[in-house]
Structures are given as structure tokens and as C-alpha cells.
């Protein structure tokens, strides 16, 4: 046996190490990622307050699995499927989220009431890597748009709920300090959860890890939902550019990551008790929305057809091992 043959294994590893070193030093990767993707194409006259408009049926979508939040206490949520659509009009981005929920829960009037809700989460534009999908990392923050059915009800009737709303038959002799802020500390301190005059059903939030969730009031973040036949549909919208620290900056012809979370009020879900989906890619394309654009069904069918032919050829001739 020649020395080359004897040492061919070691030489192969040395050669591979050399190639890998060059790849590392040049920052070149020898692998292509194929993560799940949500594509937003450009369209005019997006019905942001009509989640069940037929327009949305032609918008590309992605089905995403939600699982119970089991990462940090209090755990909660459940496994279900949600559908996300995304589109933009050159100035704003719109994300529609649809999921099943047998009962709409729109009240937080009593301490035991919890609202249905949904959130969309993006990595903050300042980050250079994808943060942890559960509220981000200390060095990789996230920007969250959080819609609640209860907030929408407040916005729709332009007033905060009162005791009479919740208990219409209740009798009260007198509230001597009804206008005293000392008896409404939440709103007196500016807690956005207690804001009686909110302008949007969706809160704009930023976070850098568990326990760091912070409101970043931004009226341009809007959300509007409608429950129909056991399903919620909620449309989020925001201008592509925000120019705010900790928020996500979006542009046509770029991409970012997006994650989702859903709360079921009837199951007492709130805060960390939620169903979550991990990050998927949101690709914002300048191409117009067309019914059969892009790679499309025909392109996919053509590739699948060729694949079936090749696979059939290969499988039919594989040796029968003994």
C-alpha cells in the first residue's frame, strides 16, 4: 500500500479543514437556508378595517402551528393553527391573522374576565440577529403589536367601560369621589392598560427579554378584528418606516422575521399564558399582488411533475437489498 493510500483519510480531513478555514475567514457559508416564509406584495386600497373582505383571500398566506407557551411561567396556551396574510401598499404594511376561537371574549370588566388577543412580533431593527422568539434577548430586542378585543370595544364606542356596563342592574347610592384620580390609580399614573381614551385597539410594545415588556405608545400601530363563525380575523397595520428606537423598520424589497401569539380569554389566558408560533420570514416584495404571480402554483406543479418523474425513475430501479 502506498503512503498516499495509507494516509488518504488524514489527508482528506486536512484538506476539508483547509477549505473550512477559508470559508470561516471569508465569512462564506456552504449551506442555504429554506425557512418558512410569509410574502407581502404591493396592493392598493387595502381594507384594513374589513378583515373578512374578499380581498384577503387573494393575499399570500402561511399556515403556522401555535403551541402552548411552555418556556417560562406562567405557562399556558394550546396547540392550534393560525393563518397569516401580509400585504403592503408602499407606505404601510398590513398583517392579517386568523385563528379559531369558539367564543369571542371582549371584556375585561371583571377581575375574572380576560380578553381574546393576538400579537405580532418583529426583531427590533437595531438587532443584528434573530432574537429569542419569547420576548427577545438583552442584546436583541423585539417590537410587538398587541391587539385586544377589549381595547377594540373601547375604541369602537369611544369610552372606557363602566360598572354599569358590566352590571347593568347594580344600584349605587353615591360615588363621592368618582372623579378623584386617587380612586383610579391606573389611569392617574398613565398606565396604558387603564387608558380610557385609547385611539388604537393595538398597543405598540418593545421588549429585551422576559419581564422587560415596555409600552411605546405609537398611534400609527393599528389593529382591527372581527369574529365570525368561530374564527377571529385581525388586521394589523403600521407605516413601513417608524423611525423609533426599538421598533422595526420595514422597506419594500427587504425581509425581516415575524412571530405570533394568541390569547383565548375564555380559557383565562393572559400575559405569558398564550399560544405561540416561532419566527418565520416576512418577505416584503415590491412586486404587485396578482392572483397567480411569483413562483406560483404552476411553477410549483411543474417542479413537482419533474420530481415525480425523476423519483419514479430512481425508485423503480433501486436494487432490492438482501
Amino acid at each position: 500500500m502506498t503512503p498516499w493510500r495509507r494516509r488518504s483519510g488524514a489527508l482528506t480531513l486536512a484538506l476539508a479543514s483547509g477549505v473550512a478555514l477559508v470559508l470561516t475567514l471569508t465569512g462564506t457559508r456552504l449551506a442555504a437556508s429554506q425557512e418558512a416564509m410569509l410574502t407581502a406584495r404591493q396592493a392598493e386600497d387595502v381594507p384594513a378595517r374589513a378583515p373578512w373582505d374578499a380581498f384577503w383571500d387573494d393575499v399570500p398566506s402561511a399556515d403556522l402551528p401555535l403551541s402552548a407557551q411552555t418556556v417560562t411561567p406562567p405557562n399556558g396556551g394550546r396547540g392550534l393553527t393560525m393563518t397569516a396574510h401580509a400585504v403592503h401598499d408602499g407606505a404601510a404594511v398590513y398583517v392579517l391573522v386568523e385563528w379559531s376561537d369558539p367564543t369571542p371574549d371582549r371584556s375585561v370588566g371583571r377581575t375574572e374576565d380576560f380578553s381574546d388577543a393576538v400579537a405580532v412580533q418583529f426583531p427590533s431593527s437595531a438587532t443584528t440577529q434573530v432574537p429569542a422568539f419569547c420576548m427577545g434577548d438583552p442584546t436583541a430586542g423585539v417590537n410587538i403589536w398587541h391587539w385586544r378585543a377589549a381595547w377594540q370595544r373601547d375604541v369602537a364606542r369611544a369610552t372606557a367601560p363602566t360598572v354599569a356596563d358590566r352590571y347593568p342592574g347594580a344600584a349605587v347610592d353615591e360615588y363621592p369621589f368618582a372623579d378623584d384620580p386617587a380612586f383610579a390609580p391606573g389611569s392617574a399614573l398613565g398606565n396604558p392598560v387603564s387608558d380610557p381614551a385609547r385611539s388604537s385597539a393595538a398597543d405598540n410594545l418593545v421588549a429585551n427579554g422576559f419581564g422587560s415588556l415596555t409600552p411605546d405608545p405609537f398611534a400609527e400601530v393599528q389593529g382591527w378584528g372581527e369574529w365570525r363563525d368561530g374564527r377571529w380575523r385581525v388586521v394589523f397595520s403600521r407605516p413601513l418606516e417608524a423611525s423609533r428606537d426599538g421598533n422595526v423598520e420595514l422597506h419594500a424589497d427587504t425581509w425581516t422575521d415575524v412571530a405570533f401569539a394568541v390569547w383565548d380569554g375564555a380559557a383565562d389566558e393572559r400575559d405569558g399564558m398564550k399560544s405561540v408560533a416561532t419566527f418565520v420570514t416576512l418577505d416584503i416584495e415590491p412586486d404587485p399582488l396578482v392572483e397567480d404571480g411569483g413562483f406560483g402554483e404552476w411553477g410549483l406543479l411543474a417542479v413537482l411533475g419533474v420530481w415525480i418523474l425523476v423519483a419514479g425513475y430512481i425508485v423503480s430501479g433501486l436494487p432490492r437489498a438482501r
Partner: protein
Amino acid sequence: MTLVDECAPAGIVGTTSPSHSASRPLRAVLLALPFVALAELLLMRTFYRVGIFIPKEGSFETVYAALSDVGSFAFDLASVLALAAFGMLALVALRRGDLRLGLAMATFVISIPAALAAGVEAVGPVPRLAFLLAVLGVVLPFLRSRADVAHRIFVGAVASCFVLSTYTGIAQGPGVNGAPAVAGGQIAAELLVVLAAAIAAMAWIRTEGFRLGPPVVAAPLAASFLAAWMANGSVTGILVLWTVGLRLYLAPWVYAIALWAFLAAAIGWLRHWPWRSAGLVLLVVAGVFVSSTYQQSLGVLAVVLLTDGVAFGGLPALGERWSRRERWWAAGRRGPAASATKRAPTSASR
């Protein structure tokens, strides 16, 4: 030239086979790959990301940067080794006259630079379909063989998991809209992972006979997962997602039992079927939802090792050193008489 000519029959590790130039590089690459890939998993996917939570000051900053660089190098080396193994296996298939298997392997290899050059969106589902083709090319001859039933069911479950992940990956990819049962497919894939782990343990017991050692050694490792979960579910859950891609839809104790079974099989097979143990390691690194060509190449190589290389006529023998080790094991268990020429039975002979 074939691996059958040059190497020991599938799974036999204690025999000395003629050393030829083609089997030595492949053996070296396949031996190094699990270690390098595991280093990538621990340093790049885990340590690098966990380090985000740790304040990096003084010497730790230097250590963190150095280990992150090592992890990055390990990723590149594992990518190169996986491609090299693919190339060599394609060559072996072609030299055996098995044009179809060679074509299946070569198609996947070619799809990688195509995806890198043209972009994933341009090539669409081609890399995933090429990956599936390679998996089918490797797995089908084994499923048609007379190998142990549990072993074949295990490999079939692994392949089914890859089929589901390929479907859900394509269905969520560019240009696809409204494909049915995507989330259901993902959940089913995760269920298959748990089932496959149990079947792997069964296959190990059926092919080797039960030994107490592997489950005993595996038990504290699996228990440590449960302990970590109870101590800090947040970090544990994220680490599981980052490393093997499991979303943990099921109860944690289900995964702990599955991990126990999986580790018992990996440790149990190590004595007589080390390539299968290596295949299980690669399976972990490939993850559930193989979403990059790197993970896909590891997935295919994992099934090559788990099927004892049946599609390629066998796997390279591990040489005299492993043979001596095996004889030492046999001597320790059965006395000197058993140490003479211990040969593990091939699964195909059962």
C-alpha cells in the same frame, strides 16, 4: 470498485478488511462528521446564543469570542465534510453501476450551489425535493431488505418524519399559498420523533439483546432534561428549539422518556454497531425540520449510517483498533473464549 469489495459487510466492525484508497477517506469523513457536527451544535447553536444572556467582560469576552469562532469553524467544517461524504457516496454508487442512486445523491449535491448562487426563492422547492429524493434512494433498499422489522420501522419513521418536514417546508416556502394540513404535518412530525425514539430502543434490543448498561447510563442524561425543565423551563425550552428544533407540543415527560430511549439505543449500538450510533448523533444535529441544505445533508448521511449503508453495499470497516476494543468488551462479559472472533450479526441476516 464498490464498498462491498473494499469494506466489511454492513455493520460488521470487528473484522479487518482490505484497506483501499476509496474507503479510507470516506471512513475518516464519516467518523469525524458526528464529532464536528456535535461541536457545531454545542458551540454555534447553543453556546453562542446562550452567551447573549451572560454579561461579557474581561477574560470571558475573549473566551466567548474564541469559542464562537470555533463554533463557526465547526459549522463550516461540518458543511464541507458532509458535502465530501455525499460526493464520495455518489461516486461509490456510480462505480457500483447504480446510476439511479448516484443520480439521487448527485442531484442533492448540485442543488446546494444552485440554491446558494440563485437564491432559495429562485430555486423554490428544488433543494428540499432533492433531499427527499436522496432519502428515498437510501432508505427504500433498506426497507425492502430482510433487516430486523423494528429496525426497518425505525428507519421508516425517520424517513416519514423527513417527508412531513419536506412537505411543511415546501408548503410554507415562497410561491405557495394555502397548502392544506401544514400545521398538522408539523405536529405529526414531532409525534413521529417521539415514536421513532421508542422504536430505536426496540430495534437495538431486538438486534443485540437487552443489556442493562445503556438504559442505566442514559437514565441520568434523560433525567437531567426533566430536572433542567423543572429548574428553568424557559432556558430549557429555548435550547431544545434552537438545537433539535422541537416545539415541545407534548408534555415534557414524554420527551424525557423519548430521550431516554433514544440515548439507550445510541449507547447500546455503540459496541457492535457504532455507525448506527453515529447516525443517531447526526439525526439529532440535523433536527426535526431540516430547513437548510446543511441540515438536510446531515439528515441523509444519518439515514445512510442508520441503514448500515445497505444502499451502497455496506459501510467502511472501522479497523483493527475497534476490533480489539470489541474483543475486550466480549472478554469482559463472557470470558476469554468469547474474545476470539466476535462478529456482530448483520441486521440483514436476521
